[in-house]
């Protein structure tokens, strides 16, 4: 059942830390370095979280050595679990409006996460 899978994904080691860190766009390598996650596990967690719509591919930015790197940002602000009758997991998605204003603002004034691009 989907809700349980979602909880399972959330409960996996490092998942919560990755979501916490991806308020701003982060690459897999950055997450691995900053959070001390083995790189293969880091990629696996990113895939799982993305599959469940908790994380999203935000952009492809250009690194210092001119490689394209994928940066991810969390897609949710909150997760609510209800045990009443059937188990349900509500995901509070990031507001589209604030996202768009953030993006417009960052385009004009820049931000650390996209300055390499």
């Amino acid at each position, binding site marked *: 059942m989907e809700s349980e899978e979602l909880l399972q994904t959330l409960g996996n080691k490092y998942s919560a830390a990755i979501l916490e860190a991806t308020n701003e766009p982060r690459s897999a390598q950055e997450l691995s370095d900053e959070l001390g996650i083995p790189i293969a596990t880091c990629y696996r967690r990113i895939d799982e979280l993305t599959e469940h719509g908790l994380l999203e591919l935000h952009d492809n930015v250009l690194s210092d050595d001119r490689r394209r790197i994928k940066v991810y940002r969390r897609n949710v602000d909150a997760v609510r679990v209800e045990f009443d009758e059937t188990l349900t997991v509500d995901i509070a998605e990031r507001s589209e409006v*604030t996202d768009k*204003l953030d993006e417009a603002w960052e385009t004009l004034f820049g931000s650390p996460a996209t300055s390499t691009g």
Partner: protein
Amino acid sequence: MSSIELTKTGVEGLDDILNGGVVKHSTTLISGNPGAGKSILGLQYIYNGVELFDEKGIFLTFEENRDDLRQAAESIGFDNWQRYVEDGRIRVYDKQVLLRENDFGAAIDILLEALDNDDYERLVLDSLTMFQLFFESEREQRTYLLKFTDILRENGLTTLMTNEQGTVFPETDIGLESFLTDGNIFLLQTPTDSGVNRYVWVAKMRKQNIDSDIFPVEITQGGLTVHENASAFSMIGEDGSAFG
């Protein structure tokens, strides 16, 4: 800091008490209760921009559709309003356009697209009160009001935002918005036996010395007129209280 560029509102009397106009590229709140003349002032600012100063303007309204707006403009004698809208010197984004998709995200897209155009120098947002419904918490409202005013400034716009004010006397109910924008002008009205007395109070104007007295206002053909000479009007209502 010696010379600050100003944008004239073209409203008779108002530019004088503002010491010349509003600061260019700033955002000024126009606060007041319903019927105080906030939207008319907005119309006038945009219309005068084209008519008197050859500056193009954008009018964003969540409150009315474009026909209502045209009627309001023409009813106060802005006969060329529709012509300017048709030739693009005034751009109107009305509630039908902004709320068409039934989701605020789409409205923001339209908004941001409208701003991304160097041709326009003046903008009116009617109203900030509606715009703030896009956001979930007060903290979010403040954060994004600041970001939005940054975006407006960076796009070279000088902005008036109308702001619904519930109380008659503003001093008791100054919202945080007032601290987040560059200026704040209150439009006040108080009932009298014969109708209503109107006043304007420039509560704040960053970077400017302004006259902080309260001045009488009239709304007639041509829109608002501010009377600099307060003694020409009675500030005090019949019952002896200034603000009911």
